[in-house]
């Protein structure tokens, strides 16, 4: 088997591969990659180097993990999962990523493709108008510094209090859309200034808002789908992928710099500067955890304001209230975050970077409505292919610290994608295939072409076969907004 590494990679099962601790000096635990053989063979060298670097961090529990959508990242690979003992372990901004609580949200509707198709152009135009996207975009919500501090501590709840959403939305978000332990005094002025005008904005890069269709033949588990509010029959749903915007990026930058200096004082050395970390219980570690939670809550609020704008856009175009259109939240889940969770080894700080929490049915942390189904997991594909709704499993809780994949994962650089595809032509081709795209940047659109990504269906198959998530349904895009 040819891999992009010289390290020994042992087969544990057809979907689990292990790099033993003998492969790199300093590894404290083995590294495990969840992937089919063909996905493993397509993974870049960075995945193997980085997941084994993570395995060297102090206090790491059990394994350093990488999901099948893994690729090179900063410090941790994208798709990386690692848990650290809360007493003896560390917290690392590189294990969360620059876009803190980048995540996915899915909103259902009672509309069908037949209802929406005649109005797709005005709908996408209205969504493009109402949800600012791209470089430097600012949102319509004007916040005082005091308001912004409340957003940091109250998350999506702040939005609902202000009328940007419904109280029941909060039940359908990871952590109810608000993570405890956020203290705005741990956030720099720079971070505040960078993020204060960005609530309700999409950003750019791989972030998007997508109108999608659910066909009957792409529902794999109709009972679970129905329990989550999806019935098929060409039903329309809306997916949002974005995070904490400039605010979270600045929190990450600020604490990476701080940790580089602080690490020396704690006698910690790392294999890569971007793995800068501090003991979780140290003042620096606790400050980062608090600031990260501020950014995570701001990301929940960001997606909540975007949801409000989406509902308004649908209401305007279809001349009915969002409630009468059945625009309920299906779920909102983070895929760039660190959280304290309890597993067999006790309390650990689970870092998920480009990986999604995937708690199984009966998990005590899930609200009652998901106790039968397991926690919804939303996985975004490229804008040309499809996306998936999955649910978590008990096996994920046992094996992967309740974690799974988050998307399809890139296989091609942005520059290479731009050489192969022109934005305007791609937009035209997608329209001919029934996908209407509105984009702020044509070069940004070309960079996100489907050919730059792995086949999401193959990635989903590997987590399904590994038993760490269960497929519910596949979603097909008909309209996409990109920054």
């Amino acid at each position, binding site marked *: 088997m040819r891999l992009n590494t010289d390290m020994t990679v042992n087969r544990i099962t057809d979907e689990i591969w292990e790099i033993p601790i003998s492969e790199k000096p300093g590894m404290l635990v083995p590294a495990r990659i969840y992937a089919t053989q063909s996905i493993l063979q397509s993974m870049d060298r960075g995945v193997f180097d980085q997941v084994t670097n993570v395995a060297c961090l102090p206090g790491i529990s059990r394994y350093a993990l990488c999901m099948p959508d893994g690729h090179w990242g900063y410090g941790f690979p994208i798709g990386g999962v690692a848990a650290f003992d809360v007493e003896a372990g560390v917290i690392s901004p590189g294990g969360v990523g620059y876009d803190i609580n980048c995540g996915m949200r899915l909103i259902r509707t009672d509309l069908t493709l037949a209802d929406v198709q005649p109005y797709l152009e005005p709908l996408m135009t209205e969504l493009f108008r109402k949800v600012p996207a791209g470089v*430097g975009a600012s949102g319509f919500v004007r916040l005082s510094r005091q308001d912004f501090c409340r957003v940091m501590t109250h998350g999506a709840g702040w939005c609902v209090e202000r009328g940007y959403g419904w109280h029941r939305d909060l039940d359908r978000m990871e952590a109810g859309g608000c993570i405890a332990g956020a203290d705005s005094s741990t956030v720099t002025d720079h971070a505040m200034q960078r993020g204060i005008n960005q609530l309700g904005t999409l950003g750019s890069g791989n972030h998007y808002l997508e109108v999608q269709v659910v066909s009957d033949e792409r529902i794999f588990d109709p009972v679970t789908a129905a329990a989550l509010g999806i019935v098929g029959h060409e039903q329309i749903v809306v997916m949002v992928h974005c995070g904490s915007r400039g605010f979270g990026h600045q929190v990450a930058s600020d604490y990476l710099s701080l940790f580089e200096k602080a690490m020396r004082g704690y006698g910690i050395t790392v294999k890569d500067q971007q793995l800068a970390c501090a003991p979780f219980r140290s003042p620096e570690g606790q400050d980062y955890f608090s600031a990260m939670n501020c950014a995570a809550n701001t990301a929940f609020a960001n997606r909540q304001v975007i949801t409000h704008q989406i509902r308004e856009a649908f209401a305007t175009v279809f001349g009915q209230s969002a409630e009468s259109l059945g625009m309920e939240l299906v779920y909102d889940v983070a895929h760039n975050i660190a959280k304290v969770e309890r597993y067999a080894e006790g309390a650990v700080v689970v870092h998920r970077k480009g990986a999604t929490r995937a708690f199984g049915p009966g998990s005590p942390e899930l609200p009652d409505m998901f106790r039968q189904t397991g926690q919804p997991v939303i996985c975004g594909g490229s804008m040309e292919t499809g996306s998936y709704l999955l649910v978590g499993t008990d096996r994920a809780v046992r094996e992967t610290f309740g974690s799974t994949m988050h998307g399809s994962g890139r296989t091609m650089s942005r520059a290479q994608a731009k050489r192969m595809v022109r934005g305007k032509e791609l937009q035209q081709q997608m329209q001919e295939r029934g996908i209407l795209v509105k984009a702020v940047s044509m070069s940004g659109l070309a960079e996100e072409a489907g050919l730059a990504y792995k086949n999401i269906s193959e990635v989903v198959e590997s987590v399904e076969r590994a038993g760490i998530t269960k497929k519910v349904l596949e979603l097909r895009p008909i309209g996409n907004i990109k920054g």
Partner: protein
Amino acid sequence: MAWTVRFLEDIALADLAFEATGESLEDVFRGATQALVESMANPATVPGGWKRRIERRDTDQSALLFDWLSEVVYWKDAAGVVFREAPLMLTWEGDVLFLRACLIGSPVDRKSQELRNDVKGVTKHLYELKQNGGQWRAKVVLDV
């Protein structure tokens, strides 16, 4: 122009990386700044109504470049602007290197400007600023 910029493709799959070279330290700062500015928007499409004078200092030239590039990214979001140019000067005062620059740009306007990537941060991944022979070289990876 005593600097050049080359975008690197094999470093950051999901992001942007570039190498700036210059005949002097000041030149390589200018090249790296131009690469960052061009990553966010086509400068030729950005008028220059917004200005911000910036002064930074450090005893470490590599830290100063990192700090300065991060400052440019900060103003993109804090002021909601993209940039046309950023003329700068470097002067040593004792063992402290001073950067005096002026960021020139205008508020984001997606109708009239060619917008590109919303840069999240300047990373330390493979980051370096080095002098080799008579040539200065900076390697920078941007998270986008």
